[in-house]
């Protein structure tokens, strides 16, 4: 089999494996971990567009996840909306947040943009706590119903898993289409040289705004899925630490790639549940790993940036001796 067919087949094999996993795994907790991995993968797919392709850093993506989660909770519990409508609204509200954040970002670059997104993240996490009548404050927001697609209630572990990963599949295909066609080249051009992009007629402002909005939208949808899968949300979930986790997954996964960040999102999610995945692992080791989670992510970011700036995807490309981004 040629390298070319192998490359074309790899995503299909991976997709097939992801699809049949619930049939192979009967443990509900394990399935839930993989469901969370899918939710993270959804956020990271958006961040891969923003960071990996367009080269814009966001240190506040958990805020968009939170916006989506709270919107879903409010729409289903308080407004009694059908789930699909609430799901769409969650994406829309987060996308609107992305638009609001994109406006200052047009004037900012590098560290300053990072600071602005950081500020946005912190601001939103305070809003989640303080807007108690709406969000439930520090006590959180519970009783969020399971997803339902029309008359079909999605509540068992396997169905939730399929719903999440189905959404991921649609998002990845859409993101792949975007990155492989005209807008994707504009994003990569923006990353490469903003002046070069302008001189090539690239709509620099438009590309930045659209990418921000798209990544916020995916984060919002991920938030809605999280809220519906778990049934309870609180401000402690959508913190700066969570934003760093998403960024770590994206950076580790690599620039100019969707597959790399996707794989990294799954791997780093599994890392959080090592004790459940490896039965024999000493409890102390698992706890230590969990306690130092953020430190591990921070260290991972530093190591990747220093030693392999193009991340997992870059190592993969180098091993294969070049080839185009996928």
């Amino acid at each position, binding site marked *: 089999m040629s390298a070319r067919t192998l490359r074309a087949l790899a995503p299909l094999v991976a997709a097939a494996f992801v699809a049949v996993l619930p049939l192979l795994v009967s443990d509900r907790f394990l399935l839930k971990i993989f469901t969370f991995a899918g939710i993270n993968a959804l956020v990271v797919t958006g961040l891969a567009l923003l960071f990996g392709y367009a080269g814009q850093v966001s240190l506040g993506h958990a805020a968009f996840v939170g916006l989506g989660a709270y919107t879903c909770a409010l729409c289903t519990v308080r407004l009694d909306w059908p789930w699909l409508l609430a799901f769409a609204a969650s994406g829309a509200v987060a996308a609107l947040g992305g638009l609001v954040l994109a406006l200052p970002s047009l004037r900012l670059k590098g560290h300053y943009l990072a600071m602005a997104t950081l500020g946005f993240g912190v601001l939103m996490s305070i809003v989640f706590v303080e807007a108690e009548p709406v969000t439930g404050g520090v006590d959180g927001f519970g009783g969020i119903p399971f997803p339902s697609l029309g008359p079909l209630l999605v509540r068992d572990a396997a169905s939730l898993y399929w719903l999440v990963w189905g959404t991921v599949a649609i998002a990845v295909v859409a993101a792949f289409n*975007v990155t492989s066609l005209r807008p994707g*080249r*504009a994003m990569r051009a923006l990353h*490469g040289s903003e002046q*070069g992009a302008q*001189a090539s*007629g690239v709509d620099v402002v438009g590309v930045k705004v*659209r990418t921000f909005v798209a990544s916020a939208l995916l984060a919002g949808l991920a938030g809605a899925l999280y809220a519906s899968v778990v049934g309870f949300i609180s401000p402690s979930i959508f913190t700066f630490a969570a934003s760093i986790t998403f960024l770590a997954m994206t950076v580790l996964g690599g620039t100019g790639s969707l597959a790399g960040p996707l794989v990294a999102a799954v791997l780093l999610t599994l890392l959080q549940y090592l004790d459940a995945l490896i039965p024999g692992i000493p409890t102390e080791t698992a706890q230590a790993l969990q306690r130092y989670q953020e430190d591990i992510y921070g260290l991972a970011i530093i190591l990747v940036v220093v030693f392999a700036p193009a991340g997992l995807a870059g190592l993969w490309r180098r091993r294969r001796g070049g080839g185009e981004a996928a």
Partner: protein
Amino acid sequence: MSLLQARNVTKRFGGLVAVDDVSFEVFEGTIKALIGPNGAGKSTLFNALTGFDRPDGGSVLFDGAELVGRTPRETVHAGVARTFQNTRLFEEMTAGENVMVGSQARQRSGFLAAMLRLPAAVADDRDARAEAGRLLRLIGIEEWLDAPAADLPAGIRRLVEIARALATGPRLLLLDEPAAGLNLTETRELVQTLFRVRDSGVTVVVVEHDMGLVMEVSDEIIVLDRGRRIAEGPPRIIQKDPAVIAAYLGGGDEDV
């Protein structure tokens, strides 16, 4: 017929007048060279013409339409493309992909069309790919199509940038020192390329230090010194112009 008319263009940086009341015309289908010692204001003038810098005074008419006040992108859309003195390539993209980006200026398909892989988006992609191949062949560097920009030799980088500018479909092409970093053979090829570009209907303005190239390719030359236009005319006249000779030899500027 004059394609570009710059009138009294002035650009100041604090107390320094980088471009001082410069006027000139570029006729359609010609190659015009813009020369002058380092610091004469050539790149500043280029930036003022292409929307990268807003002139403090004056007007730039392109085919009768005002360019001053337009963004770089709007300038490209109007039909004026440029290259940079220090190439601004997209390092992580291949030479071919770099040139494909230039086609963005002529195309419209957006995020939604791409997301759904609508025929318009796929057609734009195919068109950009074909155009990149055609332009790299025109310039004679098609063997670099799949090479990452970061790996290209300096001379090839300049040519890729020219191809990228041509991909925007310009009527006027502004080249900022295209021969810098080229060896003799490459410079010869560049001369041929410039003639081919002109013959394909694109008017050219070129900033260049290589006097051999300037004298060979240009129909007309404009000379700047310390921001002011000191001479303008055909190569044979410019070579003998006392003001030009003084600017190059008498200004204590070793870069001739």
